[in-house]
């Protein structure tokens, strides 16, 4: 298989398989988790301003009282790489074109130089949080193979995408094929690892916010 055949495969059957596993995986996992249900709370509720599931969904995106100072790398590094990933994934014109071809939906892209910078900053932030995971006793203690693995499968698409755009190391066709392959690996892995938090965190925040709102505590 030459570079072009490889690229053709990852753009065709490879993408279909990956998207298929991703979509079915996400649906299955959501069903698996949320079909467990929960019992209604029979205690008489107490009402308080700012206390609800929805409030908590939004409020938890900000560092709670005193936490930014206690763990600045987690928060600042976390913000940078999450926002950076969003810029790179949804702001890069060729990505938007791909989505348009697949679904017909499109939106304006960001200047490529800006996306380029965002990719570099994102990678830098990811390296910092990786170092933090090695360095902080609690993070190191909690870390399992999955933590290192999911870091890698998130990092590789950014790295290969950036290298393809910059024409670094390998011929463009091969690098682009590797980039698409790495995204496909990410899609396949996402529903079955901690990366699935991109879906469940809304449910988790909502459950927590709702349970505590029942008692009149905004959390």
């Amino acid at each position, binding site marked *: 298989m030459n570079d072009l055949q490889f690229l053709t495969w990852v753009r065709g059957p490879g993408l279909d398989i990956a998207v298929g596993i991703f979509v079915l995986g996400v649906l299955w996992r959501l069903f698996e*988790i949320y079909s*467990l*249900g929960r*019992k209604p709370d029979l205690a008489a509720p107490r009402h308080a301003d700012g206390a609800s599931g929805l409030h908590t969904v939004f409020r938890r995106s900000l560092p709670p009282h005193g*936490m930014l100072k206690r763990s600045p790398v987690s928060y600042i590094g*976390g913000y940078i790489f999450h926002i950076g990933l969003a810029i790179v994934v949804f702001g890069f014109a060729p990505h938007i074109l791909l989505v348009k071809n697949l679904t017909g939906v499109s939106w304006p892209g960001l200047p490529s130089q800006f996306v380029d910078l965002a990719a570099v900053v994102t990678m830098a932030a990811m390296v910092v949080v990786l170092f933090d995971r090695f360095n902080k006793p609690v993070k190191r*203690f909690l870390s399992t193979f999955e*933590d290192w693995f999911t870091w890698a499968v998130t990092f590789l698409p950014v790295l290969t995408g950036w290298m393809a755009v910059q024409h670094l190391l390998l011929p463009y066709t091969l690098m682009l094929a590797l980039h698409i392959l790495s995204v496909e690996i990410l899609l396949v892995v996402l529903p079955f690892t901690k990366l699935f938090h991109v879906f469940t965190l809304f449910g*988790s*925040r909502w459950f927590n916010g709702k349970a505590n709102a029942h008692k009149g505590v905004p959390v």
Partner: protein
Amino acid sequence: MSASLDKVTQTLKEVIDAPIASYFESCVHCGLCAEACLFYTETGDPKYTPIHKVEPLRRVYEQEYTLLGRLKKMVGLSKPITHEELDQWQELVYDSCTLCGRCSLICPVGNDITYMVRKFREGMAVSGHVPDGIRGATKRTVEIGGPMGLKWPAVANVLKKAEEATGLPIPVDQAGVDYLVLLSSMEIVNYPEYIEALAKIFNKAGISFTLASDAFEATNAGIQIGASDIAKVIVTRIVDAAERLKVKYVLSPECGHAYTAIRWEGPNLIGRPYQFEVVHVLELLDGLRQKGVLKVKNKFKDPLILHDPCQIVRRGGVLQAPEALIREVAENFIPVADQQKWNWCCGGGGGASAIHTETAEALRAKVFQIKKRQIEDAGVGTMVTFCANCRIVMEEALDHYEMNTKLLGLTELLAEHLED
């Protein structure tokens, strides 16, 4: 007395619901919950990271409820839970978790880790991996009536003394009154002034009340140990008495876990809403303050800080009343940086104070350093709280550090300064 592992797994399977599944799936191992836990901040030991305390529960979830986990179990790739492991986890689930709820407030993905620990305790209770101290307290509550083994004649005696001290009648088993007053054994034995304070305040406000000779104890060791069947037996006593006496309200004492047990867990344990309302004593007092019934004749002068008990404030929702009341009676109230729902635990909630092993006691003393810093930073000689358990835990710790900080109960402090 170890139940079979099948039974433990079955119990854990039953407690796992959609929130718990969602919480496990959301965890990204960021470790921020450790920063919210005094057992970690004061020891620096990563094993006290809150989410780690429920690791065996996570494995049961994965092995029993997820597709990949079940596949892994089928081909023998997963690690089943063992008695040795649960034995090891006992310290993490009981000695070093007070169910204080601080981690649930900071988790960035929104996990209510406290809820998970509380549920995990159900499996620990079934499998017998429970500290002897809590087991004993639970047994005494079921068999005798209270965690300290206190029987009604002793309580009646304390009530008689309170009647003599105040010159006011304290009715018992009287039907049709407004309030059924609950106590905690800790108050009856160590702080009988609470009962006197209540009698004075009720008299002044013209509110009728009674105690019930078969339901005076408000604390619920069943909830702390994690045994729902026992917790139900204990709470049913109160519900039966309140509904028999046809009271409008049941008054929870200051005690934090008693409040959570009767106010929030009770209806879920008995499977139906109550026919009465549960009111925390501070909610009642703050209501009286707002109506202008609760007037003080003079104020407490010494500078003081407030210790907000976790189960009343952060986990109980009595957020505004404590500060309003302390401002009413104290001239020099100094707010601390982490107050109200952000306050740090005394270190002995969730049944931890009933564990009297050397290591558990040493750990409690160690984690109290966070309260010690709060007291020293504020530069005060007095701390006010409103939970008998917090109070006794902190008194022991103050002795340990040879501090001469004065600890006061909020209700008593108010009663002492009340207009005659």
